[in-house]
């Protein structure tokens, strides 16, 4: 019975091809909007996650002060010392590498080219803590690190601006008053999670930066790589209590430093894009609803137009339920048809749009299925009222209908 009803419905749709198409246009647009939004949104989330992941997995960043800045009034919390770094390295379980960082900025000059960049003084541990392969040359040796020798490894942006096509390894350039030798070049990393250019950097032994640029032995950041075997949260709290002790923070007082987990940032940012995706999807879902109302409209018109047909069916012995089912199936078939067209259009659109807005194209089976079943559901909900009206017609009146 159900199959024959389906056949009847498909026949009816085929008979009014143009009208059927116009009827489902709302659903087409609705499904298209929802699926496109969500697919692109998922791509954006993925893109953010990839970028954050490029910072390194299982990495803790320690900075003085609370939050991202150093905080407002009051005495500024002190930077860290090499002793802090060693304490973390030696006293906290689950630490794979601890890389202190001292930063300075300056204008790098080579021949006629100059480029304002960031100098990052660190230790060999920096390269253990995160995966950042070199494209040429080498990282500094322990001896160079200990001596604070003026050797540097440059990011691809710096390389491009100072050396254009030349091979920089073995060459020298000047930054502020320091002439340093390029011993290695870093592979390109692209944009960071906050839109900064991660490749615009010069990496030197930390002692060189402290001695030649900052003039003190302060350490601004400490990067800690956590062993895969350990929970970052456990290591994080161990470091926190160690640093509180070392910085003599009385119980009940807030930390004057801040440890955060790259995974946390990743979660926060991808959480944000997910919420945005959900909001956009919900807005698009409203258009699906409007599409459903469109179906109801046309089905009501169709019931009026086909009153006589309904009368004939009732006269030859169709029971109310069968007439109801016929119109319901027709509405659902229309809605599903619209859903499928919408999905196909959306697939095509996201496939071509994703590279344009620089997010990966991710075909999400789940949202496609949800959108399809939701359009079927809309067919049921909005088809029910017209179908019930058709089924409740009086056969005598229906047959007399002109």
């Amino acid at each position, binding site marked *: *019975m159900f199959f*024959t009803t389906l056949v*009847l419905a498909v*026949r009816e749709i085929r*008979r009014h091809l143009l009208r059927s198409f116009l009827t489902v246009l709302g659903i087409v647009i609705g499904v298209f909007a929802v699926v496109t939004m969500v697919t692109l949104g998922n791509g954006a989330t993925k893109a953010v996650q990839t970028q954050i992941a490029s910072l390194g997995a299982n990495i803790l960043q320690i900075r003085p002060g609370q939050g991202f800045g150093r905080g407002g009034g009051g005495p500024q919390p002190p930077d860290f010392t090499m002793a802090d770094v060693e304490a973390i390295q030696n006293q906290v379980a689950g630490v794979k590498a601890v890389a202190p960082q001292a930063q300075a900025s300056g204008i790098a000059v080579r021949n006629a080219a100059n480029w304002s960049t960031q100098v990052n003084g660190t230790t060999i541990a920096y390269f253990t803590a995160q995966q950042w392969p070199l494209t040429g040359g080498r990282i500094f040796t322990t001896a160079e690190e200990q001596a604070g020798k003026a050797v540097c490894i440059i990011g691809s942006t710096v390389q491009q601006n100072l050396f254009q096509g030349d091979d920089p390894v073995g060459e020298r350039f000047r930054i502020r008053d320091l002439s340093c030798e390029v011993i290695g070049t870093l592979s390109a990393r692209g944009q960071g999670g906050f839109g900064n250019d991660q490749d615009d950097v010069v990496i030197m032994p930390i002692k060189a930066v402290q001695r030649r640029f900052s003039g003190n032995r302060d350490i601004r950041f400490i990067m800690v790589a956590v062993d895969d075997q350990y929970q970052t949260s456990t290591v994080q709290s161990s470091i926190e209590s160690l640093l509180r002790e070392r910085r003599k923070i009385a119980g009940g007082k807030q930390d004057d430093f801040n440890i955060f987990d790259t995974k946390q940032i990743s979660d926060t940012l991808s959480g944000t894009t997910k919420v945005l995706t959900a909001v956009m999807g919900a807005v698009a879902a409203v258009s699906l609803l409007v599409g459903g109302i469109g179906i109801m409209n046309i089905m009501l018109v169709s019931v009026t137009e086909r009153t*006589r*047909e309904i*009368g*004939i*069916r*009732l*006269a*030859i*012995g*169709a*029971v*109310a*339920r*069968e007439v109801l089912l016929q119109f319901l199936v027709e509405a659902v078939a229309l809605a599903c048809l619209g859903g499928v067209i919408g999905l196909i259009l959306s697939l095509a659109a996201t496939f071509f749009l994703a590279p344009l807005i620089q997010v990966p194209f991710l075909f999400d089976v789940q949202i496609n299925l949800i959108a399809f079943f939701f359009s079927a559901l809309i067919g049921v909900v909005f088809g029910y009222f017209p179908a019930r009206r058709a089924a409740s017609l009086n*056969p*005598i009146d229906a*047959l007399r209908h002109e």
Partner: protein
Amino acid sequence: MAADPLIRMRGVTKTFGAGPAAFQALKGVDLDISAGDFVAVMGPSGSGKSTTMNILGCLDVPTAGSFEFKGVAVERLDRDQRALLRRRYLGFVFQGFNLLARTSALENVELPLLYRGEDKASRHKTGMEALAKVGIADWWHHTPAELSGGQQQRVAIARAIVTNPDVLLADEPTGNLDSITSLEIMDLLTGLNRNLGITVLMVTHEADMAAYARTIVHFKDGLVESIAAGRGRVGAPA
């Protein structure tokens, strides 16, 4: 009349509306119709013949009185039960043919079989047989718009008899046809009545058509005025 009629109406009344605007279309109709009869129902407009046909066709129920079909009290059945009764025992032919537009003759004829849940092959076979019985098997793939009035009425008759009903109800079946085609349709109905034993109930305005029947019932002012024998009872029409 036979002792055990197919249809028995007793004191059937039908009132439309309520209060002062109420209109009593039937005022107590008693009517027996036995199986195999060919009954022509005649009468002026408003005499109650259409209301009677609606009740006989189980499309409507009496306000009061009893209507038994094959011994079943139809007035006690609900809407869907009456639909099943129509599906099983009744066939309808209308003045305006009432075929589904843009649907082939065969598909139209198959429609009642569809509701009986017959499979495609058997629907096709039975449908073609019914079209053959009314003499337009060659036109099975044509839609109503491609058929003449007489052909459309033949398709409608094929649809009505495709389920081998006990009773064929025809509401002015020749009302929209010219006189020659009308005679052909009447011959067809007479043949179905004689050869297949289908009881035919036909409403008509035209005495010429009523003459084909075995029994002619005249209605007037919501009552049966007279019951007479038609020409169909004694022999074949000229």
